[in-house]
């Protein structure tokens, strides 16, 4: 493992330095049939789940095969994608916002061969490398975050629960049986690096215990005033403590004011918050980002807490699957999950799903809470 220089000279970091060049320009990576028809598309059709056809004014037809990925992927897998792109797609491919990979061709015969090829590619233990699907009124890939794989603040893993949930709803990744598109997202803490807060079903890692305080280290590891000002509920204050016979500048936390957001830990590593017993996942439903029919909506918390049942999160996956099935059985065509819940009323959502309504689900955070209570005699028994 001898060090190999790239050409960079650490003694003269500015020598030949290239900076601020930005990304490669997008049009270097257009397949010819995309470059030719850009801005001149007439319409599209989903030929079958996961296979799109875009028709241009020129009469050209472009076929897209969309495949799910785990988002976390090795260079070995990316190279395999490149091989596929070289063989069938003139050396080009693209990824979607939701971490699907798309292979495109303008030839119907190539499309057939491509689909057959993709179907046969499996990981050694049997899971699909390139499952085709994720279109239309089905369930597409789960937007998610890093979790225990690489993050310092998570309350749950991301890749594991995503794998478990996608296995559970896999048939609907490859079908169009839902009333409308159903978007599931997962964020491993309430920082929400993914847009979980506007998803049909959002899974959010939550902490449930206030941070611990590492008194010996607080003043050495942190700017204590930053930790204090990071707290949205004024639960954190500076204090002096006697610890193991020594006086320390440290931090005190009012447990009853803590909402377990972890923002103080982000500012101060001496306030670790994660806890194997306390941490878990909340389920939020009914959000959307599209402006179609109704305006975009936030997701609402309908299950306050599910423990981290590694490795396959059975309670979480069962609950998600159940919500999906009740929605599929009851919503009207074109109705997103949140539109359905609003039409029937949230009280009916709880009675139909059988989910238990508990005090945790009544908003008590800041002024917007009031607007979620019921200022009306209109309700369903």
């Amino acid at each position, binding site marked *: 493992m001898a060090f190999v220089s790239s050409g960079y000279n*650490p003694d003269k*970091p500015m020598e030949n*330095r290239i*900076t*601020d*060049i*930005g*990304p*490669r320009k*997008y049009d*270097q*990576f*257009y397949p010819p049939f*995309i470059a030719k028809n*850009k801005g001149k598309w*007439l319409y599209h*059709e989903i030929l079958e789940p996961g296979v799109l056809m875009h028709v241009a004014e020129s009469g050209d037809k472009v076929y897209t095969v969309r495949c799910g990925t785990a*988002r*976390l992927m*090795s260079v070995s897998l*990316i*190279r395999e*994608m490149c091989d596929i792109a*070289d063989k069938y797609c003139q*050396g*080009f*491919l*693209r*990824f979607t916002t939701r971490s699907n990979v798309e292979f495109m061709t303008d030839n119907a015969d190539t499309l057939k061969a491509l689909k057959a090829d993709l179907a046969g590619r499996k*990981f050694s233990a049997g*899971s699909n490398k390139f499952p085709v699907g994720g279109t*239309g*009124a089905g369930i597409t890939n789960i937007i998610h975050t*890093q979790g*225990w794989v690489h*993050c*310092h603040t998570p309350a749950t893993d991301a*890749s*594991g629960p995503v*794998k478990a949930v*996608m*296995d559970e709803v896999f048939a609907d990744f490859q*079908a*169009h049986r839902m009333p409308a598109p159903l978007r599931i997202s997962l964020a491993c803490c309430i*920082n929400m*690096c*993914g847009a979980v807060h*506007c998803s049909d079903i959002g899974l959010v890692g939550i902490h449930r215990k206030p941070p611990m305080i590492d008194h010996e280290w607080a003043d050495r590891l942190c700017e204590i005033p930053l930790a204090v000002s990071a707290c949205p509920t004024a639960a954190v204050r500076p204090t002096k403590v006697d610890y193991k016979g020594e006086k320390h500048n440290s931090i005190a936390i009012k447990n009853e004011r803590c909402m377990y957001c972890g923002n103080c*830990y982000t500012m101060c*590593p001496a306030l670790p918050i994660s806890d*194997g017993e306390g*941490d878990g996942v909340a389920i939020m439903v009914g959000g959307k980002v*599209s402006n179609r*029919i*109704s305006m*975009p909506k936030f997701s609402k918390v309908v299950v306050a807490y599910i423990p981290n049942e*590694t*490795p396959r999160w059975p309670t979480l996956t069962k609950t998600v699957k159940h919500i999906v099935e009740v929605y599929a059985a009851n919503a009207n*065509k*074109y109705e997103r999950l949140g539109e359905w819940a609003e039409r029937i009323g949230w009280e009916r959502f709880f009675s139909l799903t059988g989910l238990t309504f508990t005090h945790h689900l009544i908003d008590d955070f800041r002024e917007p809470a009031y607007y979620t209570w019921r200022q009306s005699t209109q309700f369903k028994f």
Partner: protein
Amino acid sequence: MAKHATPKLDQLESGPWPSFVSDIKWEAENRAKNADKVNYQIPVDCPADLLGVLELSYNDGETHWKHGGIVGVFGYGGGVIGRYCDQPQAFPGVAHFHTVRVNQPAAKYYSSEFLRQICDLWDMRGSGLTNMHGSTGDIVLLGTQTAQLEEIFFELTHKYNTDLGGSGSNLRTPESCLGTSRCEYACYDTQDVCYQLTLDYQDELHRPAFPYKFKFKFDGCPNGCVAAIARSDFSVIGTWKDDIKIDQAAVKGYVGGEFAPNAGAHSGRDWGKFDIQAEVVDLCPTKCMKWDGSKLSINNRECTRCMHCINTMPRALHIGDERGASILVGAKAPVLDGAQMGSLLVPFIEVNQPYDEIKEVIEKIWDWWMEDGKNRERLGETIRRLSFQRLLEVTEIAPQAVHVKEPRHNPYIFWKEEEVPGGFDRDIEAYRTRHQR
């Protein structure tokens, strides 16, 4: 033989969905074999150690990654996320495991040639593991050591003509939907604005000067495929001003069952014969459409461009020709004061190169937010603290009824002194001549 036993993770190898565990194991094997004689610059077994430390988290339900760490490349304040394992003795391969964010090409089209170059670089100088892509849109190269950072940056810029993305209190890597490149709904060239503004604001992207992160996202139409409205401080969402174009013959094609509604999105269930009255006209949120049995008409003045009719009959209905975008500002995830969605600031703006009109709005917002925003305060929070009116003032945009869903619920108006005749300085003595104490 795997380096660490991972009985829990092994259970994530079954089932149909792609298994990240199988993929990491595959990478671990490939590195151990090293068929291509790669001169690995960080420990060969880091994928195996990553599985080991992840298994530990699966046993104790807690992460084993420490708080950040200031690492990066010379002259940049973002693009690299420092990461250290809190069990380095047990998992030395991932003791240091920094993330490199590489700015993705807009809308994530790639040539296999470019992707292979990134793979070769990351194979040799990193863990061989990636995220395609991070939530903001970057290519995320997952795990390397400090000594490799300048080398990686040098190769990216010199050999592959590409740059790092954003992190920290910077402009974050902008992202767009695929726009006009492959979508008939796109109202402007999302990729081009995204690319151009990324280039124009390289300094803001690489050198933190903001109160907190700032995100641009570009959606080509109100369907919102990159979720700009939910997660970007500055969302540019395509729209149009004139009439939806109707092809009456194609409308009849849908009514007669010749074309599948909604481009075939509902093919998995028998929803019955397509009913244009029930499925399009009655679901229109403004009830601005009519179907008389042979002709579809739209009162376009009442249309709010929700896309439902166009999505449902994409062969028959097309977006108008007077195209541009709406700008919404202030979206963010819940931390800290609750989630916010973007609020409409500019109802309509033309989107033409070199995008000076859009940049003018951006720069007015930045001037204000950099001056008045608090440390770690997202734009949406600054607007809530200092008022939407203030935002309108600093952007020099006239208040319009479209800025609100409904007018205010209270009369506690912050009148400006110049709006009130005589101003706020009053004479108490004169008042007392009219009113006894």
